[in-house]
């Protein structure tokens, strides 16, 4: 893919909304355009977290392998969302698997490249961390809501 096109794709992704030109140039050096067909795994639980994905189109399901039971899908990431932050947190191993449930296009950012740039350029590192923290906060809130088992709740006082 042409560098110019990759820049456009990165700029269009909500995760990088209003990112500075300087940081954009830093990111481009780590980025590649990728495509996954239906049922292809982007990440696998336990494996090295060597990529950070910005989903452009399609859908990726996060899976947990529950011993003795069927694989459980717990969340999906779609267009405009990101997949994975284990690349930033030692020991850099995926905690879940991620499988494309339809044809999926994404920007893959090389984790080692990103980590190095975060270390050497603290302003860039802080910018990435702030953006990821927002994603984490949203995911945590969504997880808490899922834990409430919302739809099984009967209205207060409803006994009939």
């Amino acid at each position, binding site marked *: 893919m042409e560098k110019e096109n990759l820049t456009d794709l990165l700029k269009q992704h909500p995760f990088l909304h209003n990112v500075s030109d300087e940081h954009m140039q830093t990111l481009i050096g780590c980025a590649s355009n990728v495509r996954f067909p239906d049922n292809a795994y982007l990440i696998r639980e336990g494996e090295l977290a060597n990529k950070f994905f910005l989903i452009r189109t399609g859908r990726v399901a996060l899976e947990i392998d529950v011993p003795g039971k069927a694989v459980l*899908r717990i969340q999906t990431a779609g267009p*405009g969302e990101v997949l994975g932050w284990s690349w930033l947190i030692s020991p850099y191993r995926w905690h879940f698997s991620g499988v494309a449930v*339809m044809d999926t296009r994404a920007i893959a950012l090389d984790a080692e490249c990103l980590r190095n740039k975060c270390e050497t350029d603290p302003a860039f590192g802080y910018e990435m961390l702030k953006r990821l923290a927002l994603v984490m906060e949203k995911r945590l809130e*969504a997880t808490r*809501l*899922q834990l409430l088992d*919302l*739809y099984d709740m009967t209205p207060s006082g409803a006994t009939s």
Partner: protein
Amino acid sequence: MKDPSEALHSAPVDPMTTHPVTVRKVIWENDDTFTLTLDMNEAFEKFSFLPGQFNMLYVFGVGEAAISISSDPVKINTIEHTIHRVGTVTAALAHMKKGNVIGVRGPYGAGWNLDAAKGKDVCIATGGIGLAPLRPVIYSLLKNRDDYGRIVILYGGRSPLDLLFRVELEKWEDEENIEVLVTVDRADSSWKGHIGVVTSLLSYIKLDTRNTIAYVCGPEIMMKYTIDELVRRGLSDEQVFLSMERNMKCAVGFCGHCQYGPTFICKDGPVFPLPRIRSLLDRKEL
């Protein structure tokens, strides 16, 4: 769309009088939710209702439960109630079979204000059994399609097997200028759809925030977070309507069981414009 006064006129003269009505059909939607089709002709000369209104269903010798009407408002000879089995009365209703007779009084309450959405886009955000009271809204919107803009239906359930009206959801999705996004809390690997809370679906759609009316129905905590997200995206309180639920007994505002601050859910609701109850939503023990 019927004139609200027309629906009120069709209500029984004595609002406490129960009419015997025959069960025509029972369809199980999932493990604990079923739809009762009732033959209204015998008991009511002319029964009509507004989307969002409810009836009191009486199982003789057991008791009464307030249940929203979930069918097409145009079809008045038979009406449907989609019921979540949660207590004694609904468990008894779950045992009903074709030909059984139950008592019905109604319809009661304020319905969804569809006039507010005329000429505008509509966002329906719902979860679990909350889709049932909004189903008549969807039928009405589709019947008068030219009166409304784009329609977005966001629906969340516990798991794929818990989703209500799946065939209809697919059918609605095929309609022009309608988007149907369904999500579940968890699924096995056969599910290809969204997984996550219903509010997460809002990130996949673009709302024309100045020209959209939102109808929200589901568990109260779901509605709270959905309203927060709608407002965060630019909708004003005036653009949001929601359906509340409390334990209703008399259905006409006499008994006070469903008192909600200065309002009665049965009489003033169950559907409210958000500004009317905004201050009550975060108040504990209401």
